[in-house]
Each structure stands twice: as C-alpha cells, then as structure tokens.
C-alpha cells in the first residue's frame, strides 16, 4: 500500500456534513473529540473545510434544499474521499423516509456526482459514539 494510503489510514481528517438531521448524531460526532472517546488519539480530526478532508461524515435525511450543497461539498473534497454515512436517517431515511421534503438517500445524491464513491454505513438512531468510532476505523481499514 502506498505512502499516501498509509498516511490516510493513520491520520484521517474528517469533515462533518448535516443534510437535515435532528442533531442527535451530530452531537454524538462532536462527542467523539471529547475526553472520553477522544478519537484524536487515533489521529482522527474534525476539520473546518471539506478541502482538507479525507472522509466525510454525513448525517441527515438529505432534504431537497441540502442535496445541491452536499454534492458541492463532496466535489470540493480531495479524492480519494470516503463517505461515512452516519445514522439511520442518512442510511435510508429512518422515520423520515416518507417525508415530503426529503430528496432521497445520501449515497444516491453523491453517486450522482461520482459513481465510484465509496461509502461506509453506521446505522443507529443515534449510533453510539463507540459505534461511530468503530465504523470510522473499520471503514478506513478498507482502504
């Protein structure tokens, strides 16, 4: 495995995107950087711009208003960029899957932009921080 992938695997920078979520998953993601879970010891850092991101953490149901912005964020990331889909809302819509303001699945929105995008799914409502950390680390080990 090349140096680039080794670097990616060992120090992933992640950017969080909310496409219309209730806040639960998002707060638990921020929880990951706090002392108890402290994913920074694994090298995982939440970054402020998609351009610095190795992975996207996407939550939310992908509302009609958010879809173009999600696609724009994905375009701005440096490739390869792993998309980690967090929470059942982002995976399949959850209880909102019939919602009138929902565009559709998060992965479908990104596949419109990049048919070769790679996804990892962490279901739950919300998934516990341990599950998210495990999901992120497992996904990165796929690379």
């Amino acid at each position, binding site marked *: 495995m090349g140096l680039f992938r080794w670097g990616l695997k060992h120090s992933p920078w992640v950017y969080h995107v909310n496409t219309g979520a209730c806040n639960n998953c998002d707060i638990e993601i921020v929880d990951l950087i706090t002392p108890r879970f402290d994913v920074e010891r694994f090298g995982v850092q939440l970054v402020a711009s998609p351009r610095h991101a190795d992975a996207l953490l996407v939550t939310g149901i992908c*509302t*009609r*208003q958010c879809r173009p912005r999600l696609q724009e964020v994905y375009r701005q990331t440096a490739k390869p960029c792993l998309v980690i889909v967090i929470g059942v809302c982002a995976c399949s*819509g959850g209880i909102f*899957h*019939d*919602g*009138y*303001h*929902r*565009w*559709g*699945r998060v992965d479908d929105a990104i596949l419109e932009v990049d048919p070769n995008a790679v996804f990892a799914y962490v279901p739950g409502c919300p998934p516990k921080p341990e599950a998210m950390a495990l999901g992120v680390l497992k996904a990165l080990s796929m690379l």
Partner: protein
Amino acid sequence: MDESPLVNELKAHLGAKAQWVRETSKDNIFALVRPQDVPDCVRILWNEMHGRWGVITGVDVVGGIELLYHFIFDKHHRVVTLKTTVEKPFPEIESVTPIVPAAEWTEREAMDLLGVKFRNHPRPERLLLSDDWPEGVHPLRKDYQPKDPNA
C-alpha cells in the same frame, strides 16, 4: 373543573368580537372570532391584556383553513387560543405581524405549508420549503399527495 376568571375577563375585553369564549379542556381557553376581527382581537390580547405570544397553527378542514392564534397568560396559568376560519380555495387574512413582530415567521410558515395569504405581511417570502419546491403545492393540506422520495 372550575372556570378560570380569565374567561370573563376575555369576554369583557373582546365583547361582541368573540362569538364564544370557553375553557374547553385543562388550562385551555378557546374563543371563536371572525377573520375580519382577528387583528383587533390580537391587539387586545397583546397590548391591552399583555398576553405572551405563542404561535399560529393552521389546520386544513373541510371548506377552509382554520387559523389558531395561541397566546399564553402566565399569571393566569392558561393558554388562550383565538380561532377563526378562512375559506378555500383562496384563504386569506390580514397579517398580524405589524402588531406582533414575532408573528412574522409563523405567518410565512402557514403561507408555505398551507397556502394562506397574509395581507400586508412585511416579508411574504418562502421560509421553509426548498428553493425548488413547486409553487401552489402545500404539504400540510389534507389533499396533498407526496411523491415517493425512494422511487
């Protein structure tokens, strides 16, 4: 259930503008008014009786849209709701935002989701629905047919 003294106070202040005033359930007082009297009644509850503004609920019923103006009276431990109905197919009513600035968003929400027109609203723009949402489609109407987002 003992009726709150607020019921009589409301009757006195609203006078003939309220067709009836009743405490219909625990801590809830409702008053029926005509659409054209709504701004005056809101002014009475907001300015004269110093009620606290709550929100406007719109309900799609047969023949019209019911608008409910909720006020909270903390000292009396009650919620007072003014009820009125505006007729379809073109439901419209005078905006109360000039009287209660906090009403601005809730009226815009009723415009988006139920299609009620608020005359003289200072900013009658789309609030909640996406930029690409079709005009004239109001999701909270009972006859709204959603397209399956999974299709």
